[in-house]
Each structure stands twice: as structure tokens, then as C-alpha cells.
């Protein structure tokens, strides 16, 4: 094991430069260090001007997504030893505008999350005094996987459609919609399907499948999208039948 490893990191200081550059730092190599530890070492000891997001360092808050050697990863879960040999390339998440160094702009993503109406939609709310909505473990299972999304946006960085057509709603937002669609307590499936069948919705997806590959929480957004395509297609076919409308 080498005593140090090189990290080549994107730098972008909009007040001084009009395009990003790369800067290389030498950090100690420890077998239980992740890329985030190396970045913190740089910030604490070598160069206080390096900006990046992080918080929980245990893979649940979704803040620290970056490109490590060309693949979107959570830097709190990407071990240095897995990214050898150096220099390890650390860049901001693909397909998002860069604000500064390794920090990207995510308001587009936030807007899309909201667009799919990710809340329980019901005709009538049951009063609290009647207790909880009953939901069997099997019913919970139907949407559980889709509820595990930590909003880390690695899937957006892996999706070439999002890169080429930034208006695409995107994997995580659609998976979140499906999470509610499949929740037995929700009645908003039709409403969401309308939104998702619009031009920038599910039909823009060409099933590259990379989103599911890079997802650190096994949400399987590609699955959610294809399942919705099937639901959408069947629903549309039904509307062709004279009794299928409404």
C-alpha cells in the first residue's frame, strides 16, 4: 500500500475564472479512508479554499455525491483503496451546472421533485381518532424500495438523457412518484400519471439503465419508469375502448 495518493480535483472560482481547472493534491493513504476523508484532509491541512458538500458521512443524507474517476459516487462511501491507482479524479456531478469547485446547482432537481406531487393524495382523510390506515407488510413491500431514495442525484448524473435534455423529469423524481402510486393509502395514481405522461416525463426515458446501476440505495428508478410506461400504455389503451373513459 502506498503511503500517499494523488487526488486531482476540479476547481472553479467564478470570480477569477470563466471555466473550471484541475488541481492535484497529495494526501495520505489510509485503508479505511474514503474520498471524503481525503477531501477533508485537503481542506483542513492543504487548501482551505476547496468547497464541497457533505454532512452525515454514512450514506444517508445524500449531500456528498461527486464524480470519482468518471463515475457518480457518494464520496463518503467511496474508499480510496477501491479507486487506486492514483491520481484519483474527483469532479462535480455530471449534467448539473457548477457553482463552485465540487458544488453543483440542484434547484432544477428540487423543482422536479415537487412536480410529481410526492404526497398522499386522497379523496377523504380518515380522522386520526380512527387510528392508522391498515397496510399489510406485503402492501408495504410494493413501494418500499422506491421510498429509499436519499435524493443524492447520482442517477441524474448517470442518465445521458438528462444530460442531453435537461427538461427530462429524471429517474429519482419518477421513482418517488411511483413510491406514492404504489402506496396502498394513496389515490393519486391517475393524477400523477397525467403529469408523468407529458413530454418531459416517462416517455423521454430510453431505458439506458445506468440510473439503477449507480443508485447507492437500490431504489431501481429504471424499474419504476418502465413499470409506469406499462401502466401508462395500458391506461391509454383502455381509454380507446368506449367504456374505458373516466
Amino acid at each position: 500500500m502506498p503511503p500517499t495518493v494523488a487526488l486531482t480535483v476540479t476547481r472553479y472560482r467564478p470570480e477569477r475564472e470563466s471555466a473550471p481547472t484541475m488541481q492535484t493534491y497529495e494526501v495520505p493513504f489510509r485503508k479505511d479512508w474514503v474520498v471524503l476523508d481525503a477531501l477533508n484532509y485537503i481542506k483542513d491541512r492543504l487548501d482551505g479554499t476547496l468547497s464541497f458538500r457533505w454532512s452525515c458521512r454514512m450514506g444517508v443524507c445524500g449531500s456528498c455525491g461527486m464524480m470519482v474517476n468518471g463515475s457518480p459516487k457518494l464520496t463518503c462511501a467511496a474508499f480510496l483503496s477501491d479507486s487506486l491507482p492514483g491520481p484519483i479524479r474527483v469532479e462535480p456531478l455530471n449534467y448539473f451546472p457548477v457553482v463552485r469547485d465540487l458544488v453543483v446547482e440542484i434547484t432544477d432537481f428540487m423543482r422536479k421533485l415537487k412536480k410529481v406531487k410526492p404526497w398522499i393524495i386522497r379523496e377523504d382523510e380518515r380522522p386520526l381518532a380512527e387510528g392508522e390506515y391498515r397496510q399489510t407488510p406485503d402492501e408495504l413491500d410494493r413501494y418500499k424500495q422506491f421510498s429509499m431514495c436519499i435524493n443524492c442525484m447520482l442517477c441524474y448524473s448517470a442518465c445521458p438523457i438528462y444530460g442531453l435534455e435537461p427538461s427530462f423529469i429524471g429517474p429519482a423524481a419518477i421513482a418517488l412518484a411511483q413510491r406514492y402510486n404504489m402506496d396502498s393509502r394513496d389515490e393519486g395514481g391517475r393524477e400523477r400519471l397525467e403529469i408523468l405522461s407529458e413530454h418531459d416525463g416517462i416517455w423521454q426515458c430510453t431505458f439506458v439503465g445506468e440510473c439503477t446501476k449507480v443508485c447507492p440505495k437500490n431504489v431501481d428508478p429504471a424499474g419504476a419508469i418502465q413499470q409506469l410506461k406499462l401502466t401508462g400504455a395500458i391506461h391509454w389503451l383502455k381509454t380507446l375502448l368506449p367504456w374505458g373513459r373516466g
Partner: protein
Amino acid sequence: MDLSACDVLVVGGGGAGLRAAIAVAETHPKLRIAVISKVYPMRSHTVSAEGGAAAVIKAGDTLDQHAYDTISGGDWLCDQDAVEAFVREAPEEMLRLEHWGCPWSRETDGHVAVRPFGGMTAQRTWFAADKTGFHMLHTLFQTTLKYDDAIQRYDESFVTRLLVDEGRCQGVVAIELATGKVQAITAKAVILCTGGCGKVFPFTTNANIKNGDGMALAYRAGAPLKDMEFVQYHPTGLPFTGILITEAARAEGGWLLNKDGYRYLQDYDLGKPEPTPVLRTMELGPRDRLSQCFVKEQEKGRTLEGPYGHYVHLDIRHLGEEVIDRKLPFVRELCHKYVGIDPVREMIPVRPVVHYMMGGIHTDIHGATPLPGLYAAGEAACVSINGANRLGSNSLTECLVFGARAGKAAAAFATSQEEPSPSLLAQATDEQRRLEEKFLRKLGGTERIATLRAEMHETMEESAGIYRAGAILEKAAEKLQSLQERSGNLSLDDHSYTFNTELTAALELSYMLDVAEAIVQSALKRRESRGSHQRTDYPDRDDKEFLRHSVAYRAADGPPRIEHLPATITRWPPAQRVYGR
């Protein structure tokens, strides 16, 4: 200078903050609500909570039992009127969250499932696999998205100061991180839900963002901090990273073993070891006692030693793969990722790590601080329902109950207030100038943030750990004082306005130093041992002298002034705290 106005401003977008915002939106739909947070709401630290949230729901369980467990768990320092309100409102809050879509784990008939938890006499901890905080936070966040136009969000805006005028809190000054623009947001009521301050210590389950921001802001504005000496050490954190291994692992039946493979808790008046978990016994004892047992085992030389210090083993192998995958999947994932072991086949190395702050901004049972217009809820506040030690799974429920209470109280207050005065603009401009002079335009300086932070960590670890002593606390107080002075002469590399995280680190360091000082001084003045505050020089509980809260007021210079407030006792007179029998 950007100036905006709202009626109720919530600082912090975690469990308590989002619940408060929804409470205002639902009860006072005409009010303008704003939520300001230095991170996007789904990054708030509520997200890492694992084990569960307690509320009485099953037959055979009573509110009185929950109250008693909480009060005895808190070593009788809890305010019992607050605890009574808490246990009474908890079940409704949890059901409300269920109606909002929270994916609680279920029994086969579809009812919400509960699990046993440390210090509880009945099973009342609701859970969502072992990612309860994650699911609760995302449910709350997604529900707030429904309140279009009612709630204005200021994401990644770092609050640097409270605006106080005419004796009441009237807003905040904040930096919009992406652009470096300083904003003044005036409000008729402000609710601080900024969480705890675990990062004051070196080994903690807490995220990088837990720096006691709100506590320091309130402290500087004249609101006192209560019971700061009570720092909870969670008995099972991973060595090196400090990552939390949930109490649920013990609730499902995990054992704590020393280096001889012996369930050592039986030596410390926590009951007799049984093959399956028994409530309030052994591994289901309260967190402070379990952490203290670790230290005692270490002194006896019966803990294992590794590259990152001493540890013991948490054994869940006997639970079997099926149970672990169903009830503790995240634990398995974390162990595999960060320790390289499979808990189905190997034992997990664990040690106590700082986890929660029982102390915080002093509030009454409605979330109001002594400063009119300023409210607080969640871990940032101290109501106090947790007293000298918090029981696991009470904190997530606390966020909901007191988030809602503070929201409603703040909204009611806001409806009675006039628009904030224009003189606040002068304060805001002052603050902008301070930020420019002390940080952004400052050249030279000799102290590095990382160095001061490391020294603070070392001081706190040594003095405010599981066991404390007067002499060490005195030294620590002096050291912290010198660190405060040195922090006035920081050498900063980053003078940019765009997403300057060195600036935020410097501001966070200053918050942490204030909070650390309050912790050490409060610990120094409490000459007894109670709950999580254990003094080797005063090893007994002293109800005559110290059945009262420590209330710390910031002094213009020098150590804070520590005053006292008696703990509110209603129906449960102080008694012996007994577990295991």
C-alpha cells in the same frame, strides 16, 4: 443587502422545523411562513436517526407508564408537566405522520408495529425498518411540498445572527451560500430548530452540520441555555467513524460482550442475562448507564483495544439472517461497508460515542424562550422532557410534538405583533460589515480553523466525557477561553463570495466554542452525579441541592453566569432509578 419579511420564520429544516412549518400552515393559513436552513431540508440530521419513535398505541400500555419511563430515565430532572403533555400528544402526532404517508413497519394484520427499546416498560417504539428518521424526514419534507405559496424556503442560507429590537426577536441575518449575498429576513416570530451540537466532541454519531448554531444564536441574543452539561453518549457507535449502530439491534436481542465474550452488564446492577431481551434490563437499560459500564470495563482492562481505541463487541449473530435483513438491514449494510464485516457471522466492534444533547435553549412547554418572539423545538431546545438522560426513541417524537407546539405558539404570537421596525436594517448592515471585516476581507492571521477545532475536541473529550472531575473541568474552561481569544485571529484562505465553506466552518467554530463553554461551565457548577453527568469527585445524586436545571446566561466577557430553575414535579416524586429488577 437583501431585505425580506415574513410572519413566522423557522430556522432549521429537520424534523422539528418542518413539523413547525406545517403546524403554522395548517392552523394559521394566512400567515407568511419561511423555512431557512444551511442545507437542503432532506440533508438535515434527522435523516440519520435509525431506531424508532415512541408513542403509546398498544393495549396494555398507558400514558402514565410512558411518562414514568421518561422521568425515571431522565433521573428525575425532567419537567413533569412537559412530559405529561408530551406523552399525551405523542400518539396523535405519530398517527398524523402515518396519514401523511410515513412507511411504518407493520404487523401482519396491517396495524403499526412497535418494538421494545431501552428504558421502556412496554413496547411502544414505532419504527420504519431501521431508518426511522430517514422516513420521517422525507415524509415531512414531501408533505411540506404540498403547501404551495404558504411556505417560502431559503435553502443553503446560513444564519449568522438574530435580530433583536425593543426586547423581542424580530428576524435573522443570513448569508445565501451560493452567492455570498447577505440577507436580512424580518419576522414576527422566530423558531429555532437547528438541532444539537455533537460536533463539539471528536467522536460523535452526529453529522458535520451539528454545530449548535441555534443554541449559540439564542445564547448571544440573551436567551439562556439549559442543562448543557447533559451530553448523551450512545453505547454503540462504530470506532473511527463514530457511525451509529442503532439501539434497535439490542432491542431485537443483541448482546454486549467484553473481550472474554462475557455479557458484562450483569456486573453493574442491570439485571441477570436472559437469552431474549427483557425490558429495562441488561442491554435494554438506559444509555447513560450502559456507556458508564463501558468505561468501568475499560478501567478493569476487559475491553478490546484496536487502532482507534478501546471497544467491546455487539453480538447479533444469534438473531439470524432473516431477522437481521427484515428488522436491521441498514445495520448490516453499515457494518459491511465501514467495518468490512457481516454481522450475521461476526461481532460488531462498538464503543460509546457522543450522540445527543439533552440540554439546549431553555423553553417552556409551548416552545417559547424567555426572549419574546423567540421559540425553539427539537434537539436545539430543552423543555425539558429528557432531563439528565434521554430514552431512545423519545427524540423523534419530541421533534413532532414540540415542533407542532412551538409552531402554533409562534403563530399565535405573530398574529398579535406589528410589522418589524425599520431600525433592524441598521443591525443587519452592522452584521454584514462584521462578516466582511472579520472573515471575507480579513488578511493575515495566525490560527487555522482545523487546529483550533482539534484542540477544542481534545479539551471536550478529556473534560466533558462520560466521567468528569472538577479540576479537569476548570482547566478546560480556561483552555476554551483561550481558544475563543485565538479564534479572533483566524487565518483564512478563502475570500470568495461563492459557496465559501471555509467561512461557514469559521462561523460554525465560533458557535461551537460558545456552546462548549456553556457545557463545561454548567458541568463545573453541578456538583453531583445524575444521569449522563457523572462526577468522580461528587459520585452521588443530590436531590436536596441539585434537583434543578442549570441555566447558563452569556456574559459580556468571562464565563457565563449559571442560574437555577427547579425541576417541575407533578405526580412522580423523586425515587431511586432502578433497572434490571
